[in-house]
Structure formats: structure tokens, C-alpha cells
């Protein structure tokens, strides 16, 4: 089988052998009501109210949403507005911890007898895809089609990040139990775990744990970014192609992040909703790099203080990996459900942008075999027909093209703009 293109990146997986540490409780947490794909939640608590760990503090009637829970026990200070990374504003609940971390008395281990009951229970867990986009788990596990393949995404192809790697090393049995649970409920016969070869320890631990299960296989993958992109992973492991405008479910596959699986299993064995997040703290401004277990809503400044960040050198603070992660405008921003890493980077070398020299590197790097340089030209002309012809909609904004371009052209960034532009034009035409 042909392999899709991509780029070989430096790995910087320096926290791979550092077990998760627990961050001391912050003096306050700020929990945003939108940390998932779908409808933001409405706060269900009022200032001065006391809450316990795992208590629901935000919910929504919309099916496409995920509940929000208190990550600390304490007193609600305020319900405020918070500007999210994507620029929109949502409500956020500020809680002052009492330091006791009392679990919420109403938590019970969820019981279910049918697939519907399973999903309803999951709906209340607040679980979302922890690898990036934050699709609510109860939506992901309720596919419109019959699924015959469960694919566990443990590629973790971005440099620095080791959150999934650490989870695999520390909770292999939880992960496997979670896989079996989901396979049983959704009646899926086969499962593969895709791991990039740069995680030998995790691979060893998982394959030992999965040895006796013929339905679960571990698939080592070459460390080529973006190995963990959904369509790339599906193609490399199952040989199936998710076509334009289709979902993985259309070819019988569900892809789930390995940390999300671990969470699902923990939820069904303890009843504790999603309140903590494992993240990698790294970057050249970090004095003490580490893997951290953090209550959701913790201001990033607490994380940086703990990791001895050099604030003088700090230039860019990134949530996520260096390829697709987003810059944070300040250190007050809270840790969210989908944040798998915090990177503190110093100033990058200035690069000159030149005209495109038509070297073709962007085309060779693109996993979708798109032509980013042509897309850029088409967008400059605002040529919707040409953009469609060049299959703009297939672009997954993986940034390989921008990474390799010697002329430093903002190719993937342009594709992002072009997508928004095409959407606008289509809406205007309606």
C-alpha cells in the first residue's frame, strides 16, 4: 500500500519517561462553559454556592454538547465572561477551592443494560475527544452506520507531546478494559491501536497487556507527521479511504483517542466525570519539564510556575503541539478538556518571506496530495471555482505545507482563510 506523504519532524519527546505529577491546587479555577465541539453549556450554579468535585456546573439541552463539572471542591466566586482562543466569548465559572477535594455525594457508578443507556450515561460524563477537536464522546460512540472497526489513535505525532504516551505507560489495563467495553457495547469485532514507533516503552507495555486478546492488535507506524490525523490513520491501518465530505463511520470505522478511552473506562468504573486533564509541559523556556495532572480550569500561570518557566525569555505560549497548537494571548487562560500540552517557547528566528519559487515541496509534503501553492494563488484571486477544483475542502490544516515551504509562505493559514471565504460565498449565494 502506498503511504501518504507527510513530514519528518524533530520529536522532542523529552517527557516520555516522566510520570504524571499532580499539580498543587491553584487559588482559583476558571471553568469555561465551552470546551467541546457543539453547543456551549449554561452555568447551573450561582455565586456563593458550594460545589464538590464532579458536581455538574454547566449543562445544555442540545444533544450535541458535553456537560461541565467542578474540578475542585469549594465555593463558586463568580460567573464571568471569558474570551476563548477562537475569539468567541463564553461563560465561565470561577471556583475558589477549599482544599478538601470532597467528591460530589451524588456520584454513582453508572450502570447500563443497553446501548442507549450506555450513551445516556456517557452524556453525563462530560467526556470529549481529548486529542484535539473535542467531539463529545457520546456523539462519537453513536455513529449513524454499522461499525466494524475500532481504531485507537495513539500516534501522538506532534513534537513534544507525551500525554497519550504517558497514559499508555501508566494505565495499560484501563485502556484495554475500556476498549473491550466499547467493542462489546457497540458490537465491534476488531480493534487496532496505532502508535508511532517513537514510543517504544508504551508500545511494549500495551502489546504485553493486549497479548492474549486476538481482537486487539497494536500497529506500529512510522513517525511521519501527521500520522495521527484521522483520515491518514484510517488509511494506513485499514486501507480504507474516507472520501470528501464523508465521516469515518461511513467506512465502518470509529477513531478514538487513547486518553479518551482511558477516561471512558475510569468513568464507568468510578462514576467520576471528566475533571482532570493530563498534559505535557515543555518548551525551551521551561526550567523543569514535566507531565502534569491538572484540574480543568487551572490558570496556565500555575502550571508555568510549577514548571519553573522563564518569563523573561517567554515569547509564545502554545496550547497543544507546535504544528497545530494555538498561541495563547496570556497566562490567565485556563487548562481545558482538550489541552494536551502547554509549550513555552522563546522568540523564533525571524524569517523572510519570499515569492513562491515553485519548488514543489508543499505538494510533496501534503498528505492529501493537494497543491497548496495553487490554492494560495486561487485564494489571492478569490476564485471559488478553482478552489473547489483544487479540493480545498480536503485540506485538514495539518500545516505540513507551511512547515516545509522555503519561501516561508503562509500556505495552511491561507487555506484556513480560503475555507472561511468559500463558506461565506456559499451562504451569500443562498
Amino acid at each position: 500500500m502506498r503511504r501518504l506523504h507527510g513530514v519528518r519532524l524533530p520529536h522532542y519527546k523529552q517527557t516520555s519517561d516522566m510520570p504524571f505529577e499532580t499539580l498543587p491546587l491553584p487559588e482559583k479555577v476558571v471553568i469555561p462553559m465551552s470546551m467541546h465541539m457543539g453547543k456551549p453549556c449554561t452555568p447551573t450554579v450561582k455565586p456563593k454556592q458550594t460545589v464538590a468535585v464532579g458536581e455538574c456546573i454547566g449543562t445544555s439541552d442540545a444533544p450535541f454538547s458535553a456537560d461541565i463539572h467542578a474540578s475542585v471542591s469549594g465555593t463558586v466566586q463568580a460567573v464571568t465572561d471569558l474570551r476563548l482562543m477562537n475569539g468567541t466569548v463564553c461563560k465561565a465559572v470561577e471556583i475558589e477551592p477549599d482544599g478538601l477535594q470532597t467528591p460530589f455525594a451524588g456520584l454513582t457508578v453508572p450502570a447500563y443494560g443497553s446501548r442507549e443507556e450506555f450513551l445516556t450515561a456517557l452524556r453525563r460524563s462530560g467526556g470529549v475527544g481529548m486529542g484535539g477537536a473535542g467531539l463529545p464522546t457520546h456523539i462519537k460512540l453513536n455513529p449513524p452506520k454499522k461499525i466494524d472497526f475500532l481504531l485507537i489513535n495513539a500516534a501522538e505525532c506532534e513534537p513534544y507531546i507525551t500525554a497519550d504516551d504517558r497514559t499508555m505507560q501508566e494505565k495499560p489495563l484501563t485502556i484495554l478494559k475500556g476498549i473491550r467495553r466499547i467493542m462489546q457495547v457497540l458490537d465491534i469485532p476488531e480493534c487496532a491501536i496505532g502508535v508511532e514507533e517513537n514510543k517504544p516503552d508504551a508500545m511494549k507495555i500495551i502489546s504485553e497487556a493486549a497479548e492474549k486478546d486476538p481482537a486487539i492488535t497494536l500497529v506500529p507506524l512510522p513517525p511521519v507527521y501527521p500520522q495521527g490525523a484521522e483520515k491518514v490513520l484510517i488509511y494506513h491501518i485499514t486501507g480504507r479511504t474516507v472520501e470528501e465530505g464523508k465521516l469515518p463511520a461511513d467506512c465502518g470505522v470509529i477513531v478514538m483517542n487513547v486518553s479518551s478511552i482511558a477516561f471512558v473506562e475510569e468513568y464507568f468504573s468510578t462514576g467520576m466525570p471528566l475533571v482532570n486533564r493530563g498534559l505535557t509541559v515543555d518548551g525551551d523556556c521551561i526550567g523543569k519539564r514535566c507531565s502534569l495532572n491538572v484540574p480543568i480550569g487551572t490558570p496556565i500561570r500555575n502550571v508555568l510556575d510549577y514548571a519553573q518557566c522563564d518569563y523573561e525569555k517567554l515569547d509564545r505560549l502554545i496550547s497543544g503541539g507546535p504544528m497545530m497548537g494555538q498561541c495563547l494571548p496570556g497566562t490567565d487562560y485556563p487548562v481545558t478538556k482538550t489541552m494536551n500540552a502547554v509549550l513555552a517557547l522563546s522568540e523564533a528566528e525571524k524569517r523572510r518571506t519570499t515569492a513562491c519559487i515553485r519548488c514543489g515541496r508543499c505538494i510533496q509534503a501534503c498528505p492529501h496530495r493537494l497543491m497548496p501553492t495553487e490554492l494560495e494563488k486561487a485564494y489571492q484571486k478569490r476564485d471559488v471555482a478553482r478552489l473547489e477544483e483544487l479540493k480545498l475542502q480536503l485540506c485538514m490544516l495539518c500545516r505540513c505545507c507551511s512547515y516545509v515551504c522555503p519561501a516561508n509562505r503562509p500556505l495552511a493559514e491561507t487555506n484556513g482563510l480560503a475555507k472561511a471565504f468559500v463558506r461565506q460565498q456559499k451562504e451569500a449565494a443562498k
Partner: protein
Amino acid sequence: MKLLRVTPSPHIRDNMTTQKIMLCVIAALVPSAVAAVIHFGWLALLMMVFCVVCSVAFEGLCRIIMKREQTIRDGSAALTGLLLAMNLPVTLPLWEAALGCFIAIVVVKQLFGGLGQNFANPAIAARIILMLSLTGDMTNWIQPRTAVSDFSYDAVSSATPLVSGTANIMDLFWGSTGGCLGETCAAALLFGGIFLIGMGIISPVTPFAYIGTMAVCTLIYSGGDVHFMLYHLLAGGLMLGAFFMATDYVTTPITWQGKLIFGVGCGILTFLIRAFGNYPEGVSFSILLMNILTPYIDKFTMTKPFGGIRKAGSKA
């Protein structure tokens, strides 16, 4: 604490830059430059330096006059100057070389919008224009120093091996024959070309397709005469053209399929011109012609996106 910078991702970049690419190509021409000095004397060095300086100056002036961002630092003008020098005979008067630089940089490159916008390879276009307008000076080949003991430029002139058809294969390989500065020594060009392929700067597809097609055509034409084939591969500007001109990013197709078509097309055209045309040398003309066809080749060799679906009725 200072303010945080907010930039779009990716936050890391590959370390290859436009400037580094140009410098690599210049570096790959160094062996040829050394060979040129050995064969044609210090005047060859003067010619190369002169062309580089002229080209960079023209580029700089153009950008100032056009009130555009200054681009001489990207190295592309220096490279064009050097490539042009490689395509000139050492005896060419310097003012004519300067004219060549003017044509290459100002007319062919900047008037079309600068780096990345020109449709023809500036050095090739300049060579052809000089060739057509100053044919006498442009074909005043001299016998390299190694071939004559008592040497003076005015005294000994010689035909290029493509006209005479009598040179020794080894001489062609090492470059002790008449010709332009950079094209005589096939060994140095091969070395530079392999360096560029090894560095990942140029794709091996174009030179292989070009040289391969020439080899096949000459073999068939001569009824399997290997000596004839080697003669045509090593003589004239084929090596220079195949490794350094037909691989120019800007003026050649962008996908490997396109590069293959481009290389084969160049090979066939060069062969046709050499075998049946009036000019003994066809490399420049073939590359120029294929440059003109490049946008069309690009159109037919667009990539087929992964996961793309064809619209009903259209053949993608």
C-alpha cells in the same frame, strides 16, 4: 513580563529557505567554475564575477525603481548571473555580457514580476537573445589552455566539438575542448548535479529523463553507435542544461510527472535540433520551448487528491 506573541501555527519550520536553496545551487556550480578557470584562465573568473555583480546590481536597481521590496538577498539574481556566465564564451566583450545580464534580470525576470513569475529561464533567454543578435562574438570559441602550449586568445580559435565532431570523449568529459565557460567540463557538472540531487534541491527526474531521452534518440539514430551517443551526451551544453537549467523551479513543471514530460520533451527537441536543425546546439532552444509549454504541462499533471471524489461526468 513582556507581552506574548500570537502567531498562527505552525510554530516550528523546516530550516530550508529560498536563500539556502540558491546558495546550494551556486555551491554546486563551484566545481564547474574551477574547471572554467583551469581551462580558460583567470579571464573566466573575471567573467563570472562580472556577471554576478551586474545581475545583482540590475536586480537591486529594478526593485528600487519599481518601489518593491528589495530581493537581492534571496540569492536568485546572483545565481542567474553565474548561470549566464557559464553560458558565455570567455572571449565575449564585457559590455555584451552586461547586456546579457540586463536581458536576463530586467527584461525576462523583473518585467514579468520578479522571482517566481518569469515564464522563461532568464539565463537561457539571455543566451538565446545574445546568440541571435551577436552571433559572431557568441560563437568565438577558443581552444582551452590545456590544449595549446603557446596560448593567446586572439590567435587560436576553434569550433565547438559539436561542429567539428572530432573531439576525444575523454577530453569532452574533462572539458579540454572549446565551448562556453561552464559547459565544457562534463565531470564537474555531473559532480554538481549529483550534489544537488543528494541535497534534495533538485529532483533526479528531469536530468534523468532529459539525458536518458537524448541517449535513446542518438542510439537509435546512429544505429547503436555508443561512441556517437556518448559524444552527444558530453558535448555542448547538455549536462549544464539538464542539471542546472531544466531543473529551475520557476520555469519547469511542479510535479514529478510534469518534470518527466518536461525532461523527455527537452531530450527530443534537443536531438531534433542537433540532428536536423541549422544550429549545432539545441539545448537552450529546447529548454526555452519547454518553458513555454510548462503552464500546459502543469495543467495536465495536477495531483489527484487523496479522498477526492470525481464529479459525475467529468474525468479528473
